């Protein structure tokens, strides 16, 4: 995403007569990126859709107060991450299961999901991710799939960059081992 585009979106939203056009541009530019970010965390398509909707509610409500301290895309990523985590916590509470059990539950559902067409190795990856500690799994997904910088992950999770790097490499090794065995 070019910074100019982000600037254009923010300027459109600021002016009352172009606010809707700004919202439309924001949706167009970020909906897919945010959807896939959320989907990797919540797994199920319908859940990802609901969380995406909540993310844009938060974004539309708060964007006029966005100070531009970070890139717009980083701000959106942070909101999507927080909303996904809130959603998973609520889902765990509803099902009365802990984080690890919830991840296992989500992966079990994948096998019957019409919107998952992964092969054996992709399914094995999801099973491996479900067995990792929550933080390691999140860090792995952000770094491996979304290619988020270690520094940005550290900021998002309020950890040191060294701790994030270390967690990522441990997670990567565990997944490598899991897939070798599977």
């Amino acid at each position, binding site marked *: 995403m070019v910074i100019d585009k982000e600037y254009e979106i923010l300027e459109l939203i600021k002016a009352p007569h172009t606010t809707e056009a700004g919202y439309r541009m924001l949706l167009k530019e970020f909906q897919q990126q945010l959807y896939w970010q959320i989907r990797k965390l919540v797994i199920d398509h319908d859940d990802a859709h609901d969380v995406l*909707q909540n993310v844009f509610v938060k974004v539309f409500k708060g964007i006029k107060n966005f100070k531009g301290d970070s890139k717009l895309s980083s701000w959106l990523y942070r909101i999507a991450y927080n909303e996904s985590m809130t959603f998973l916590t609520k889902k765990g509470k509803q099902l009365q299961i802990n984080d690890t059990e919830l991840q296992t539950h989500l992966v079990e559902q994948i096998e019957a999901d019409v919107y998952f067409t992964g092969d054996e190795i992709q399914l094995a990856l*999801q099973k491996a991710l479900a067995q990792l500690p929550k933080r390691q799994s999140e860090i792995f997904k952000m770094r491996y799939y979304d290619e988020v910088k270690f520094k940005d992950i550290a900021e998002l999770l309020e950890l040191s960059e060294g701790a994030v790097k270390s967690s990522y490499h441990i997670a990567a090794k565990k997944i490598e081992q899991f*897939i070798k065995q599977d």
Partner: protein
Amino acid sequence: MEKENKHNKDLGFQVPQDFFKNFEENMMTQWNLEDKLGKETGFEVPDGYFESLEEQLLPVVDDKVRKLPNRSNITTFLYPVLAIAAMLAIVLTLNSGNKSVDIASVDTSVLEDYLIEESFI
């Protein structure tokens, strides 16, 4: 700390212990994963999902945003509540001898969250 001797001729630079060993292992792990897994997740979306997503989201999100209380509504409601809390704190302080209640310790955001959770606002 270890010095890498062959290509570092006494310039004083050092690297952390096992840096090169770990670097090599980490790079090989990354290469193995990308080789075996690629970057595809296997997740799909319904046909035409993204084409119609904007039109689906905009009215729903817009409606929800309008229904949310805005900041001024919250503060308008919050100020009388804070005033009552402050008065209660003073009364308790006067009536409790040595015990004192510090109103400054009541965080506004905590009160705000409580009011939202209890559906007062």
